[in-house]
């Protein structure tokens, strides 16, 4: 049906796909698993025409194809159901399905035909709603059905589903699995991406494992297990991928968060952070992790709760207050919040602690010395520190955003997704850096979506769901399954 040979895709800082092969049979559900950054999304986006491969080929029913955009992919029968659904809320279901190719009667829209035709596709997906409701009024699961109906209306032979259950409830998930089974019978092939290995075992025929942009293996589900898949995903390097954990700390908390709340996001969250401790904060996207961190450092107004430093209650209203009290927060979004892309690498390093070098007049020599110190210490590979930071790789940018805050000499460091968009080598350097900082007595809170990262790095992991602390895991209890069980209600039952 679909065959992929030696696909390569490079981004400025990282080789996302490095010669990946894959074959998809007619009427097959084919799972693709891998850690974040393993290349799953890149592969799917190339197949759906969003990206173009740098090398390698894609054969559709034996013929080489090269989609320049999603339109060409859909025309060839390949449709992607996105994680963020691409529907127009203001339009009806039928209008969304036929968007851009509405049936016409002369110059006018043929609304009746559109409705009738849409109903036919909705029947195929067993839709509980009709073609004339507004998409904006539907639940996420409903919107997903519309997307699938839309794909069917294009006579799609291949559906690419990117984390389709991430946003679904338990019942909605099983309804989706029923639909997938029906589509299979109609000989539709499905590429199914998910983090949830157990789900894979239920819904897929075969599973392909990717790691660091390379194909590891493709297995029939009968021949594998979630544990085996997890090992394959992480690879043999699992042991030394993470640095040795610094000795488990003791003493009184450097930071105590007591019952903080942010309307709609965080509800009565409390935890302590000891000096030298690395604590993970896990939770699904939208669980309130980032909001909680921003509330602690004064970037977001909190409606309740207090923060204590070394046992003393402190008032934090702005990031400046937090900085003064030795609390630093490295944002998850480097480009939008973490760094000033138009400024140079050097200027970004000293931006938060500029007062130390410019009060009010810049002391050039002192500033240059500090910048050089950080660039050397953290191994930032910046050819010219006075060039725009925009041109650095993701990993080096991330080091600079950490350096910027380390320069303020914090006692508490909150890192939000510190390895997002960072290649494997730089990831390791960042893990080593965090371990070293903790060993020097810095209290670290690491927010991450990569459970393996938290397990490998942290002394203990806090799990939040819908803004509430669901539990704390330490030692051997820190496993992906346990974290997931706490992080998501659906998987709790599945596990």
């Amino acid at each position, binding site marked *: 049906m679909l065959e992929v040979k030696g696909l390569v895709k490079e981004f400025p800082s990282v080789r996302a796909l490095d010669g990946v092969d894959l074959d998809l049979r007619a009427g097959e559900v084919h799972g693709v698993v891998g850690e974040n950054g393993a290349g799953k999304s890149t592969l799917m986006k190339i197949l759906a025409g969003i990206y173009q491969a740098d090398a390698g080929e894609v054969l559709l029913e034996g013929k080489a194809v090269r989609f320049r955009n999603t339109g060409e992919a859909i025309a060839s029968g390949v449709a992607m159901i996105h994680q963020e659904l691409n529907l127009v809320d203001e339009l009806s279901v039928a209008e969304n399905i036929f968007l851009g190719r509405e049936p016409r009667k002369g110059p006018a829209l043929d609304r009746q035909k559109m409705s009738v035709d849409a109903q036919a596709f909705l029947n195929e997906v067993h839709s509980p709603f009709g073609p004339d409701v507004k998409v904006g009024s539907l639940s996420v699961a409903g919107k997903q059905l519309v997307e699938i109906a839309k794909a069917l209306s294009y006579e799609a032979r291949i559906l690419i589903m990117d984390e389709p259950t991430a946003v679904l409830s338990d019942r909605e998930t099983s309804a989706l699995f029923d639909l997938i089974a029906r589509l299979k019978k109609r000989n539709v092939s499905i590429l199914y991406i998910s983090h949830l290995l157990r789900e894979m075992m239920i819904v897929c025929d075969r599973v392909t494992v990717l790691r660091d942009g390379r194909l590891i293996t493709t297995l029939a589900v009968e021949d594998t297990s979630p544990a085996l898949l997890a090992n394959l995903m992480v690879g043999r390097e699992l042991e030394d991928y993470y640095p040795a954990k610094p000795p488990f700390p003791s003493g009184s908390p450097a930071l105590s968060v007591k019952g903080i709340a942010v309307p709609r996001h965080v509800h009565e969250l409390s935890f302590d952070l000891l000096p030298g401790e690395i604590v993970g904060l896990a939770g699904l996207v939208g669980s309130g992790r980032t909001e909680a961190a921003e509330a602690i450092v004064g*970037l977001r107004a909190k409606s309740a709760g207090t923060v204590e430093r070394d046992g003393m209650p402190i008032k934090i209203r702005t990031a400046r207050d937090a900085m003064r009290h030795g609390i630093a927060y490295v944002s998850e979004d480097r480009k939008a919040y973490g760094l*000033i*892309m*138009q400024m140079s690498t050097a200027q970004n390093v000293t931006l938060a602690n500029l007062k130390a070098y*410019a009060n*009010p*007049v*810049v002391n050039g020599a002192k500033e240059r010395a500090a910048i050089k110190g950080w660039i050397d210490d953290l191994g930032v590979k910046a050819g010219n520190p006075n060039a725009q930071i925009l041109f650095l790789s993701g990993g080096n940018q991330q080091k600079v955003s950490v350096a910027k805050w380390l320069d303020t000499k914090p006692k508490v460091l909150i890192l939000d997704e510190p390895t997002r968009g960072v290649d494997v080598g730089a990831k390791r350097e960042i893990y080593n850096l965090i371990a070293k900082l903790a060993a020097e007595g810095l209290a670290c809170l690491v927010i991450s979506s990569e459970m393996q990262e938290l397990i490998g790095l942290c002394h203990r992991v806090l799990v939040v769901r819908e803004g509430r602390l669901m539990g704390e895991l330490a030692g051997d209890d820190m496993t992906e399954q346990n974290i997931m069980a706490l992080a998501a209600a659906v998987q709790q039952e599945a596990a």
Partner: protein
Amino acid sequence: MLIAFIVLMIGYAIWRPDIVLNPEFLPRLVNQNAAVGIVAIFMTLVIIGGGIDLSVGSMMGLTASLGLLALNKLIGDGTSQSVATLAAVVVSVAVGAFLGAVNGIAITWGKIAPFIVTLAGMAAYRSIATVLAAGGEIRSSSSEVFAELGRGGLTVPFLVLERDRALIITWPVIVFFLSALVAGFLLNWTRYGRHLIAVGANEKAAIYSAINTSKVKVYSYVLMGLFAGAAAIGLAGRMNSVSTSQLGLYYELDAIAAVVIGGTSMSGGRGRIWTTVIGVLLLGLITNMLVTSGLSVYWQGAVKGVIILLAVLIQRGHSD
């Protein structure tokens, strides 16, 4: 831009050597454009900080009017002309700084877009100025000392121009150069300048970097107002009166044009002071050439518009 200025200057000198090679030409060009130059320099800072100030022209009308009213009141009360003139300067500068703070606070605390706030200021300040003299003019009652603000200055020794007159660097020109130095220093050598660039480039990231963005922005408008007040009282001195409906009229637009010609990004986060100075002089030179050329007044606007666009295009070619 400097090259464009020099090329234009040489071309002009070849065309009309009698005008350009006269030693009075350049000082006069600078003098005529000093007020717009002062405004443009601080407009550069405001724009680098991600803002804009459309109110500055109207603000000048108001600050100069109040300065002159203070002057006349004091002289009426028997104060000496020098003291009254000093008071007029202080009033104009202080009112300018105050109005700048009003703009800045409305933008930061009020969370209203700079364009809107200063558009409102543009209407309001001019209106208040015209109320002060029923739309007419306010005459200075100090023809000796106050008028010196616009015409007087420091005499350059040993340099004698036509008709045995010494070259005088006028007060507005001195303030113009001082402004360029102050703004350039602030921008390039202080924490404030670094913060201003950060705020203009990415305000969110600046907040996340523990920068007090409101303070940074308010200061840029206060500086703008303060120096606009100084420029305004200089203009009033030059005329020895304030035409409330006209003083500073369209200065904001001339200043923005000069800033843009100088290559400063309208979206903030990037810009230079010295190129703005060149931009001001370039615009002034073009205006001078158009006047000298005797080109119909109906056409001059069109020519100026085309030249502004050309200058920006050349500038872009350089920076990319």
